[in-house]
């Protein structure tokens, strides 16, 4: 098997991009929301971040084979959030230029057009431990100029709220079906860090409801290739049924 772009699927680039979020994180809980982030977290733990902790999505900490190695009920989970030993990759119904995220409702909060989940734990997560985002369908509906209800705190909102909000605030990356975005700009506005092979910069700009910053020099690199060993792990060990291809369709 080669690792050329011709045979690596878009979903697999997304897995690699998600896995990279947990590189060098040390002994923290990886909390992936969504299928591809979950494959990514397990890939990271199997390869370059073996110290990561994983959960079964319920009350157990589990090893790679799914067997329990610890107990983490909701209230202890919340303590781990505030203790900072966690790097969550959350979803987002809306996400703006400074990383404010909305999962609560669409439209005016007092009488929403569409009620969604509610803010859940997004406020506590974002000011206490690193939070990345996963967006399986990159579009102007998600990437908006201004979110309707700030659930997860973005860089501008944290700065406005003061040192207690910025002290532990960090949004490492946003992974989508098209690209990897980060906030590595002087004003922490969203930057196009890489595009997945097969995607153009124009395509990403077109699908984003605000102007994206570009890397210094203006050249946008491609998301890195998986190694042969990583591809084998994804395809044969972690996700042999290919569920990842249903979350992000092959192109």
């Amino acid at each position, binding site marked *: 098997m080669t690792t050329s772009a011709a045979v690596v699927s878009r979903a697999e680039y997304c897995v690699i991009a998600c896995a990279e979020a947990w590189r060098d994180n040390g002994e923290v809980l990886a909390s992936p929301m969504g299928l591809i982030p979950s494959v990514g977290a397990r890939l990271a733990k199997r390869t370059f971040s073996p110290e990561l902790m994983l959960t079964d999505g*319920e009350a157990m900490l589990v090893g790679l084979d799914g067997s329990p190695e610890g107990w983490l*009920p909701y209230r202890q989970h919340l303590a781990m959030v505030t203790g900072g030993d966690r790097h969550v990759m959350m979803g987002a119904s809306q996400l703006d230029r400074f990383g404010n995220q909305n999962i609560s409702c669409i439209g005016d909060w007092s009488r929403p057009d569409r009620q969604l989940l*509610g803010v859940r734990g997004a406020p506590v997560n974002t000011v206490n431990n690193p939070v990345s985002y996963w967006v399986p369908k990159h579009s102007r509906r998600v990437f908006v100029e201004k979110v309707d209800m700030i659930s997860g705190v973005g860089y501008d909102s944290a700065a406005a709220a003061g040192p207690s909000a910025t002290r532990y605030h960090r949004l490492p990356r946003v992974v989508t079906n098209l690209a990897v975005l980060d906030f590595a700009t002087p004003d922490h506005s969203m930057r196009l860090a890489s595009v997945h092979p097969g995607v153009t910069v124009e395509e990403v700009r077109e699908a984003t409801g605000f102007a994206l910053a570009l890397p210094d020099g203006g050249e946008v690199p491609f998301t890195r290739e998986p190694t042969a060993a990583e591809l084998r792990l994804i395809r044969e060990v972690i996700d042999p049924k290919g569920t990842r291809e249903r979350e992000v369709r092959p192109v």
Partner: protein
Amino acid sequence: MSPDEVVTRLRSGMTIGIGGWGSRRKPMALVRALLRSDVTDLTVVSYGGPDVGMLAAAGRIRRLIAAFVTLDSIPLEPHFRAAREQGTFELTEVDEAMFMWGLHAAANRLPFLPVRAGIGSDVMRVNPDLRTVTSPYEDGETFVAMPALRLDAALVHVNRADRAGNGQYLGPDPYFDDLFCEAADAAYVSCERIVDPADGFGKDVVPQSLLVKRHAVTGVVEAPNGAHFTSCAPDHDRDEAFQKLYATTPWPDFAARFLPRDGDEEQYWSAVQAWHEEQK
């Protein structure tokens, strides 16, 4: 006590905390009894699931205090959504951790607890009554002062209980049920089975499974399948088929068939079984 006896102790206008989480170990038998009563105008405090959806659909909620409402396997609770989109109740939307600290404050008889959550988010915008507090120590940090969520009554469901009000959970997660009981002036615990007084919880009891203490409990109800259709591991899983029915049936139709005003738990359970028979 019976579920209906519990409800005779509840009054319109009360603040009621409901245990469980999403569509897991919800005290549904007690919620069903509430739905058969005339109690209304409630402030409901819940990590919300179908308890919130049903009470909202039936127009019993004046204010909801919550961080989310979900059916887990069905991410968005349709009746809660409809009620929000029609503006039929007021909402105090807080973060999950703020909610937990609100219960802790109430359980510890404190007016508030400081929490690093909410600041910077629109939780502060939509709750203009929320205040911040500055640390009196050298750090000088500013936190949200999460007000106590003191409850007039708490309703929770556990796997086993004794008649004195000690409650045992056998599933993987205690959720926040003991905190709900401690934060309440009166707490009512329904259980899958009341343990025999002679045996108690048994000689091989795992002590940390004894979640709810009798000093914090006012009444105990034996309600087999009392969490239905939410999960109550390991006694029963979520009834996914029935949950789907609930989520896709107009509320008046669902209520007419499964929750008639003159019904009771027995009637509910036979209606559920009859429905399952029809699906075969």
